[in-house]
């Protein structure tokens, strides 16, 4: 009985690891490709941004801060930033037409790449943020 319990725990553990690994792979492949298609032109493929026009995402305070800050930025664009506080010239559109899953993948990609360690975002996080808006 004890052996069965250990076995089940192991299966769950391995399952959890493989789920996490699958999620990570999804962020690295799909998240990257969604980032490049929707964000890469302005923020640059390497996240380096454009001085005075679009913010750099490398080591960005927002990308490493609370999840909501990144989700709101993607959902609302420049409207997520308090007027008069931005040092960047170009306007960012909202990407609320993307699905919760797509936004979660982009947010996770930005928060776990470009020297950031803000951590990943789930589609449930996006869903609850969208509801608050």
């Amino acid at each position, binding site marked *: 009985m004890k052996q069965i319990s250990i076995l089940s725990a192991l299966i769950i553990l391995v399952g959890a690891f493989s789920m996490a690994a699958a999620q990570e792979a999804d962020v690295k492949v799909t998240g990257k490709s969604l980032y490049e298609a929707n964000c*890469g032109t302005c923020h640059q*493929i390497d996240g*380096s941004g454009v001085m005075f026009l679009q913010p750099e995402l490398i080591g960005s305070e927002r990308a490493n801060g609370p999840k909501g800050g990144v989700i709101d930025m993607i959902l609302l664009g420049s409207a997520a930033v308090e007027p008069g506080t931005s040092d960047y*010239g170009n*306007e960012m559109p*909202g990407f609320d037409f993307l699905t919760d899953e797509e936004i979660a993948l982009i947010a996770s990609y930005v928060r776990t790449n470009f020297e950031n360690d803000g951590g990943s975002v789930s589609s449930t996080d996006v869903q609850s943020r969208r509801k608050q808006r």
Partner: protein
Amino acid sequence: MIKNILAATVVLGGTAVVSAGPAPLGVDESATVNPETGIRLPEGFKATVFADEVGFVRHIVKADNGWLYGALMRPKNRMGLVAMRDTDGDGDADETLYFGNKLRGTGIGIYDGYLYFGTDVSIMRWKLPEEGGIPTEKPELIAHGFIEKRQHAAKSFALDGKGNLFVNVGAPSNACMEKARTKGSPGMNPCPILEDFGGIWRFSATEQNQHQKDAEKYATGVRNAVALDWNPHADGLYLAQHGRDQLAEFFPEHFTVEESAELPAEEFHRVDRGSDIGWPYSYYDHLQGKRMKMPEYGGDGTTESDIGQMPLAGFPGHWAPNDLLFMTSSKAPEPYKHGAFIAFHGSWNRAPMPQQGYRVAFVPMDVAGKVTGKWVTFADGFAGTQEIRSPRDAKHRPMGLAEDQDGSLYISSLMSGGRVWKVSYEAN
């Protein structure tokens, strides 16, 4: 053997004849970048680093009092303008002063003993001290009433030397879409932005407190012309426009990523009173040599448009022309006397293709202001690297241009702390 010697003599003779003729316009593509200055120039020109670490310097102008003045996009030492002077004539400024408390701006110019400066919402001027240095009197407000926006907000300007001030009022938009930079959003028709933006407004250069609403809309359909100058030879206003962004991103059915990197052209125009250069309804395709309908207004990359005048020249997409200069000095070298120098800041939106443009180009023109040949690269190497994937890879990006009374050319860059080069013709 004799045959070989003869052949060698013919080749050498040919070389001698070529080198005895006038140097070709523009840089020699086989030449190397000067390691001291980091830039490459045409044969017969040399450069010095005139000033380093000057701040985020944008447009520059040389005054008769011997000082070079620059507008700063972000304050340095809390000041928005810089004044530089080379006292010993070695091509390196040895005095640098800052003024303009808490100001920031792009445009700068001189007329009738006054230094003009453009913030994002106003044009002001100071009486220039004859002895040089920084102004001692309070500034006067010349033009105001510009609506404050973030995008394309810089108020660059040109002075015609006859009492007129021409201000670029950039459109706070990419292509006048209903929803900013959003795929599938159509262009507004008519474009309401053109009422207050997207054109050149003419003011008196001397009257104080003029509101934009009382000024003349001199030219329209101009998305953003940071680069503009009065051509004193041809007596007209010339400008270079930043073309729209993201064709393939919004219209992948009509444009490949390669086409979107190359299109639309950065357009070089003469604009007279009442000119319309087409934005947002049309753009210039330099590959086809035609003016095309903008896709937000029903275009598909192949449909021509009859809205907007044809440009004098079209440059590759997204190169970002940020200053334009016509030489006036009699000491300017002959082939460059009447043409247009254009400073290209360099692209940010050609990805996934490499970024391009980081150079000063020259458009050969006659005294009547007509283009007489294909444009050439006058100075390059600024970026410090061949392959630029992102603008951050560039060490320097050309920004402003100014002429010295001795026929030299100053070039500014706001990158890496801010730098100004002085380019001289060796024969002078």
